[in-house]
């Protein structure tokens, strides 16, 4: 009885996780696939060629998405490293309030927030610019990066810093030679999260960026909505690659003791 249950659970996991992925993979190589056929009637890599054509819009969108994701990661790290350190060492007054402020963008439904942001950005001519999209992504990414960075710095025993000061290292030198290297795994993990979130982000990019800024998720959306299922499937598969690669990295970097300090 037990093994039947176990097999059923495993089978459903395989079906629900791998099923949609298999569907994507099949669609990406289907040149003709009409109802009521179970499988495509004509196979081929024609649409891959379309997507990867140097002049193709998909590649352009991919590079733009990566560029925006890198900028977003840089902005988030520039804020989260000092903020996380200050929050972890508890030298800030109103510490819980500050932590809550970083969480706030997540607390409200995305859509109204982004529509309002888009309206405000319109005033400052930020709609349809890379800077505008990066800002929207950064607001979203700061939630992860500040909280994870705070946890990463909190996991560094203050006595390790004191030992460096005691040996004669100045404050900044202690930070760069002891604190930061020890918090780095957590910081790297947070950077990866921010990068992936930005790469996948749709709602904000749509309201603030479209139509001038065409990131890969936006292209995927318009391709899917326009019936270009093959293009949409290939874009989705491309988006999967960095996610899987980075998740493997994160799994190696993010250790239990960092997670244990989350939200403190």
């Amino acid at each position, binding site marked *: 009885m037990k093994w039947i249950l176990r097999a059923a659970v495993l089978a459903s996991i395989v079906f629900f996780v791998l099923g949609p992925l298999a569907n994507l993979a099949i669609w990406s190589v289907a040149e003709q696939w009409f109802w009521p056929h179970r499988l495509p009637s004509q196979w081929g890599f024609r649409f891959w060629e379309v997507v990867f054509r140097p002049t193709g819009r998909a590649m352009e969108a991919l590079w733009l998405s990566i560029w925006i994701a890198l900028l977003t990661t840089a902005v988030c790290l520039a804020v989260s490293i000092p903020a996380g350190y200050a929050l972890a060492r508890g030298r800030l007054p109103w510490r819980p309030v500050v932590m809550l402020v970083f969480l706030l963008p997540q607390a409200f439904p995305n859509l109204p927030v982004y529509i309002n942001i888009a309206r405000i950005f319109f005033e400052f001519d930020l709609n349809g610019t890379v800077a505008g999209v990066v800002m929207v992504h950064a607001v979203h990414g700061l939630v992860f990066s500040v909280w994870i960075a705070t946890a990463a710095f909190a996991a560094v*025993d203050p*006595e*390790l810093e*004191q*030992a*460096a*000061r*005691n*040996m*004669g*290292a*100045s*404050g900044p*030198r202690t930070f760069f030679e*002891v604190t930061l*290297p*020890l918090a780095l795994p957590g910081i790297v993990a947070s950077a990866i999260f921010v990068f992936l979130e930005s790469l996948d982000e749709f709602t904000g990019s749509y309201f603030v960026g479209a139509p001038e800024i065409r990131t890969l998720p936006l292209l995927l959306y318009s391709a899917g909505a326009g019936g270009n299922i093959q293009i949409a499937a290939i874009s989705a598969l491309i988006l999967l690659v960095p996610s899987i690669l980075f998740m493997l990295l994160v799994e190696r970097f993010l250790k239990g003791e960092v997670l244990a300090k989350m939200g403190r």
Partner: protein
Amino acid sequence: MSARLEIERVEAAYSGTRVLKGVSLDVAPGEFVALLGSSGCGKTTLLRCVSGFVPVAGGAVRMGGRDITHAPPDKREMAMVFQSYALWPHMTVAQNVGYGLRLRGVARAAIAERVAATLAMLKLDGLGERNVTQLSGGQRQRVALGRALAIDPQILLLDEPLSNLDARIREDVRHEIKALQRRLGITTIHVTHDREEAMVMADRIVILDAGQIAQAGPPEEVYNRPVSPFVASFMGANNVVRLDAAMSGGRVRIAAGPHNRETDLTAAGPLEGPVVAHFRSEAARLGVIDEDAVDNALALDGRIVQAAYPGGFWRYAVAVGDRQFLVDDARKLDVGLPARIVLPADALHFFSASEA
């Protein structure tokens, strides 16, 4: 090279609570001073005031005549061994030990040489390339000591460095550290709550109580001539008898009580009225009730209520009236027997009851 350390009426406070209430201490070059006290007495705070991690609210700290009261911790040329060892897990043993030298701009080859010599001195040869997380507790403790000694500090600060070690290793390490300190002649301040550790290692013991020095002196002086009931109890004389005393011809006359006869003792006076006498379990003897009172000793009549064998002798709980005392004796005696606690005059530390 070692320096004199002068601590002058130092005060410190944590969020409004005064932890140090004006502590003055002069440590001679090469001297080994133990700061002894129970938790919360301020001993660790005092060490952290000296090392610069706790701001000094009043008074002054001087090292070799230089005022360092408000100097940042990295400008003090003191080396500290932390209770947690505080070794950097992202560096190897050699990198940990050599870090202070690297900060001082010492050439790479010279660092390697110095690190190797330090590791050899601490019997850590061949462990230089290990990660500190791969070491045993005793090895980590020695790496922490090596890191501190490698920079040739003027003053060595030890913050309960032995409290995380197994009891068996601890005994050896006490003597090793003491021998090393002697040989290098470094001015050392050692914080501990372990009386025996302080006695064995230090040239001078400073007992702290509630942010003030209760007594300071060589181990045998603090042990044999405690100046207050607190110090007497802390140094192990924690059996307390309440008595009435008067002076009589240069001796102290103890008035007869419900459990003792009138007795004359040679003791440091003058004592008048109600007093408390502290004594150690090992300084007392058990006599049989009918025996005559021993000369120059106080006898308390009671009954054995409990017996234990801690090793080498028996320890009895003896009830005298409604109080119990712990007394050591070599003989095996039965629980329930009447017994007389015999306390020679030099086993008793008298204090006026108003001090207690």
